């Protein structure tokens, strides 16, 4: 315990940062019938998330973004292991070292740290009324008596523009959009400082997505909470995030203020992701990158993007580019960062 405290002091977490991640490495180490495979799903990632900020993580399949947020939430289990680095939360002076002292995390769950997931059915018990889910998840953490708890829940639902009568409904009686709104209400009823949102709008229709994103932004702004928002959809990032990190093959490629990133991408991969999005009213031909995202079990040498990069030089295949401050105030991991032209 003392060791943990002294270690925490050394890194001197600035109070502005709710989450500080340093040099995080989490690998899948798999042994199946004698074949050992090591998959570097999260490979040396450092980042910070500030109070009252929506921090986006963008990446394709096998970019390691799901592994990263699982690691941040302390929700990994074998065969995945944290090999190096640290994840520290700071909830109003109470600091939690997720991998130094994991027992600190448990009481903070839902009270300080909650989740909005893609499949709402993972959270809502399909055979019980919605109110039971609220009771199961939130009652212990609120420290309120029965009547006060339910009036707080109803008040919270009303504030989000939801009819409190949904508490009496079964999940299957509700539409997918309504269920997702309820999981948002459920995740925010304890007014947590930190929310992890994993592809919360991916399965939703366009009109419902617009509303659900608005709802998340609303709640976040009102509670001054921080959100890590993960999706592969760059347009959703444009709509909701304040800062954005782009992941490629287990590493960060670029990070910066969302507006600056879209206006002036510094990494060729970011430039491609943004440039290839079609827009109504724009008929220019969009290009696609050659090749495919690398397998994390066998990533390319040097910069992992170099086999697909239009700007790759010989050095890119030898050396791993480190995250450096970029010209637009963010960070970028590219030897030719200054030369990228937005498509």
């Amino acid at each position, binding site marked *: 315990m003392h060791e943990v405290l002294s270690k925490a002091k050394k890194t001197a977490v600035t109070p502005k940062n709710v989450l500080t991640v340093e040099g995080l490495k989490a690998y899948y180490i798999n042994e199946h*019938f004698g074949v050992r495979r090591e998959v570097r799903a999260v490979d040396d990632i450092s980042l910070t998330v500030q109070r009252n900020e929506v921090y986006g993580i963008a990446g394709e399949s096998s970019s390691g973004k799901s592994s990263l947020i699982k690691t941040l939430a302390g929700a990994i289990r074998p065969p995945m292991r944290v090999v190096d680095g640290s994840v520290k939360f700071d909830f109003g002076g109470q600091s939690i070292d997720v991998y130094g002292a994991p027992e600190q995390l448990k009481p903070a769950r839902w009270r300080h740290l909650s989740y909005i997931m893609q499949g709402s059915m993972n959270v809502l018990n399909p055979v019980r009324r919605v109110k039971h889910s609220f009771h199961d998840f939130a009652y212990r953490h609120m420290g309120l008596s029965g009547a006060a708890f339910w009036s707080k829940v109803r008040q919270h639902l009303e504030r989000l523009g939801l009819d409190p009568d949904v508490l009496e409904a079964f999940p299957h009686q509700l539409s997918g959009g309504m269920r997702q709104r309820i999981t948002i209400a459920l995740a925010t009823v304890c007014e947590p400082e930190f929310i992890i949102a994993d592809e919360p709008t991916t399965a939703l229709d366009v009109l419902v997505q617009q509303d659900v994103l608005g709802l998340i932004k609303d709640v976040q702004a009102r509670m001054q909470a921080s959100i890590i928002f993960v999706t592969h959809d760059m347009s959703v990032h444009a709509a909701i995030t304040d800062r954005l990190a782009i992941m490629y093959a287990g590493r960060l490629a670029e990070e910066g203020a969302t507006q600056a990133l879209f206006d002036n991408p510094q990494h060729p991969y970011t430039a491609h992701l943004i440039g290839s999005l079609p827009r109504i009213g724009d008929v220019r031909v969009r290009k696609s990158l050659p090749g495919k995202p690398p397998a994390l079990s066998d990533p390319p040498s040097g910069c992992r993007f170099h086999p697909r990069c239009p700007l790759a030089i010989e050095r890119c295949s030898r050396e791993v580019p480190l995250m450096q401050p970029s010209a637009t105030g963010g960070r970028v991991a590219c030897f030719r960062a200054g030369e990228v032209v937005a498509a």
Partner: protein
Amino acid sequence: MKVLIDLLRYNREFLLGTILISIILALVAASFFAPYDELATYVVIPDMPPSAEYWLGTTSRGQEVFWQLAAAMRNTLLFGVVVALVSRVIAIAVGLVSGYLGGRVDQVIMAINDTLNALPNIPILLLLVFVLRDQMSWPILAVTAALLGWQHDSRLIRSVALSLRNREFTRHAVFSGMRTGQILWREHLPYVMPIVFYTTMNNLIWAIGLEVTLSILGFSDINRPTIGGMIYWANAHSAMVAGIWWWIVVPMAFVVILFLGLFMLAMSVNEYIDPRSRLARMGA
């Protein structure tokens, strides 16, 4: 081959199952080198306890328990395997076809299936024994048992086939010009193999149990040595009362070894053959 070595090295159930079944198979192999005709009686001194000369003792009918056991194990195992194989072929064919075709055809097949399933097994077999009397031979008994032993498993297979039918890869296969037989055989069969293996084990145990039951009751060709037949003769000579315990204990012990070995093998092979773990090994 490498797979087998890996399984032996990393899977304890597989190792234990292999050892137990090896004992049984060694016994079966030994039966072909028996010094006496398995049907002959009074070839050795009766009622001898296990000793260096007669490893597992001798029976009151003047047979050596060891060589009787070897022949009995061979015959019983053969019966079980024939039943299991024949009933598997029926169960797979009925289950896959019914599940894939669906709709009206499925309803009709399943109605027949459930009717057959409701028939009581033992009375039907006894009836057959009484009707056929002297013409009754073990292959006829095996085929009859097989005809009675697939309905439950075909229903299990059908439930998997029903879900496979609506998968996108089935539609894709149809538009690739694959014919129904090809789709069932190549696309769907791998997905029901775990069920097939698991139920084969159950079916084998059921069939052997059936054989033992019928033989103990004397409703089979009692001169042909089988595990149940051994126990029948032991009872007929009141072996337990007469203190010839080895005559009864030995076949029972070996049935337990057989069942245990089959169970362990089925469990470990099941884990290996399951598409999910197969995919995990392929690195998906």
